[in-house]
Structures are given as structure tokens and as C-alpha cells.
């Protein structure tokens, strides 16, 4: 069995890391999902167990990590939100959801759109109600965050009207920002493509 990368060992308990190595050695096609997959993407906390999902219901292609497939952030968000519709989700999921919003461009509202595509049988209102119920019992910075954030989510459910969103800071991802001061004249957008076997992200270049 190959050793796990150092950073992956840092976010898994001993038992979970051993199970990961075993499954990877067996060539398992299981897809790691839920809080475990989120910890793999964000590396924000230690996960005591591995959570798996069905490959059939995934929205986007999973990412291979140390021999196992890991679900995309979109699928993780859908899995986290659907937990709030069924029964009392653990408090860690609320904290995970907050981290997902703060560290990635994903937000609960977009997760609800994705959830409606994957699980049309699941009521969006029920998810928001479950989220509110869980947030009412949360304390500390997680509770304070959701106390500010949930009114925005509720307002976003309306079919018309302006929603003032201030809770989630604007994402400052490592994307190239063209000099809009001088307009985009003289620059053209180059689509993401493959060059010499390597993926190249989209970028602006001069004509």
C-alpha cells in the first residue's frame, strides 16, 4: 500500500487513513463525499470517518486523490444541504457549510438550485427550515454567521425584488482581472484549453 500524502494524513483520523489506504490498494471505485470530501478540498478540519456516495447521482466528475475518487464541491454542497431536509444534521455540518461559503465561490443559494436539479422531490423550503432550525441552536461565530446569512437566503427565495447581500465577502480567487479601466479593447478572452498535455485556464491576451 502506498503512503498517503502528508496533508491527507493530517486531515484523517488513523482509522480513516488506514481505510483510505486499504480501499485505494484494492482499486475501489467508491466516491468519497460529504464532510470527508469537503475536508479533502478545504483541509480545514480532521475527519474521523470516511463518507461515500453513489457515483450515479453526481453532478460533476469526481477528482482522483491518493487512489480514491473525491466528489466535487458542487456534489458536496448538495449532500450537505440534503442532510438538513431529512433529519437533524450534526452541528459540524453547519460549520462545514460556513467554511464552504467562505473559502469557495459556492453559496447556499446556488446549492439549492443544484439540489432542485438532483432531488426534485425535496422541498427547498424544507431545507431552508432545517437550516434555520440547526442555526438557531448554533453558538459562537457559526451561530452569528448564520443569524446574518439566513435572512439573505430567505430573501433570495422571492421571485422578484432586490436582495442586499453583505455577509459573504466577495471571492478573491486567483483569477486574472483584465484592465477594465481601459475597457477590454485590444484584449481577447482565451478559452481554457490544453497545451503540451497541461490544462491552461482561461485568460485575457492582447490581440
Amino acid at each position: 500500500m502506498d503512503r498517503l500524502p502528508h496533508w491527507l494524513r493530517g486531515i484523517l483520523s488513523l482509522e480513516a487513513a488506514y481505510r483510505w489506504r486499504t480501499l485505494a490498494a484494492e482499486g475501489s471505485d467508491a466516491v468519497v463525499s460529504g464532510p470527508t470530501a469537503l475536508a479533502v478540498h478545504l483541509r480545514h478540519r480532521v475527519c474521523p470517518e470516511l463518507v461515500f456516495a453513489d457515483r450515479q447521482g453526481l453532478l460533476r466528475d469526481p477528482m482522483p486523490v491518493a487512489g480514491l475518487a473525491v466528489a466535487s464541491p458542487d456534489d458536496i454542497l448538495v449532500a450537505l444541504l440534503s442532510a438538513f431536509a431529512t433529519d437533524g444534521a450534526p452541528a459540524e455540518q453547519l460549520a462545514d457549510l460556513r467554511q464552504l461559503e467562505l473559502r469557495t465561490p459556492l453559496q447556499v443559494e446556488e446549492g439549492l438550485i443544484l439540489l432542485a436539479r438532483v432531488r426534485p422531490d425535496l422541498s427547498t423550503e424544507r431545507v431552508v427550515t432545517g437550516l434555520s432550525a440547526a442555526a438557531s441552536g448554533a453558538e459562537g461565530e457559526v451561530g452569528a454567521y448564520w443569524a446574518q446569512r439566513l435572512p439573505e437566503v430567505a430573501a433570495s427565495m422571492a421571485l422578484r425584488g432586490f436582495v442586499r447581500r453583505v455577509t459573504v465577502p466577495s471571492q478573491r480567487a486567483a483569477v486574472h482581472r483584465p484592465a477594465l479601466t481601459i475597457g477590454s479593447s485590444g484584449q481577447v478572452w482565451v478559452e481554457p484549453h490544453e497545451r503540451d498535455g497541461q490544462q491552461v485556464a482561461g485568460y485575457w491576451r492582447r490581440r
Partner: protein
Amino acid sequence: MDYGTNCCMDDLVAFAAYRGQMDATPEQVARRLGTSRRRVVSAARRLGVGREGIAGWSFTAEDEETLRAELGVDAGGPLPRSQMRVLAELSLRPRGLASARAVAQACGLAPATASAAVKALQAADFVVVREGALHANVLHPRWVELRPLLREVRPPDSRGTGGPPAGDLHPGEEAA
């Protein structure tokens, strides 16, 4: 580092930037808000923010926040600004928006601009109509590429409070 009388200009600039006390130029603010210098200066005159000295305009962090609230933030990207605003708003509406007029109100755009943007986005399959409402097609192949840019977009805070918004985007002003 010695910031005494012998320090050079670069050191002073670096020190001021480190302390977060350096004022921004209109070009810097325009770049951060994704707009033009002309709109920034025009809004600054209208709102009475910023300082116009011999070297030109300068803006503190508070001034910049006021301008951000007035003008919003446009992130740029492969689509015109109005379309980016519409997509950004629709991606945060789980039930979609009822009409192009509702899109205009939610995004802080002129109705004609919003209508043209919705039509273009529908033609590109970025926007779909489901259950009588306009929805963002979050499963579009290019969605993951656009998402980080969409999250930087912020409509002006003054939108939705009534009255015609200033500094609006019009069809002729759209980015290429």
C-alpha cells in the same frame, strides 16, 4: 527598516501600504470595481467623497466603500458586464426571477439592458425558463469557469430602494 529622513520614496510607499493608510487613485478604484475612471470620478463628485489635490483625485478606504456601494462591482470576464450581473443574480435565486423586469430590478440594470442580456444568455443556454421563471443553468459546461467571477459581482446597494439609479449600464456601454 529605517523610516527616518533618509528613506527613499519606495520605502515610504511600502510603509504606507503596509499600514493601510495609502490613498487610492481613481484608476486603482476603477480597476477594483471593474469600471471606468470617468464613472468613479463622476460618482465621487456627486457623492462628495475623495480628495482632489494637485496630483489629482485620491480616495481613502471609506471613500472606496462608498463608491462600491454606489457603483457596485463588475468582475469582467468573457461575457458583457450586464450579462455577468444577470447571471450572478440568477445564480443566487433558487426559484429564479419572474421576468426580465424583475431581473432589471434585482440586478440594478435598466429594463432594456436587462431584457437584452436575458435574451443573449438564453441564446447561449446560460439562462433557461423553468416553471414560468428565469433560472441560471448551473450545469452549463462553462459554469465552473464563470463562477469565481460571478461571485465578485455586486450590484449597487442603492438598487431596489426606489428611484432611478445613477450611473446605470446602458446597452451602448456594455463591455465587448
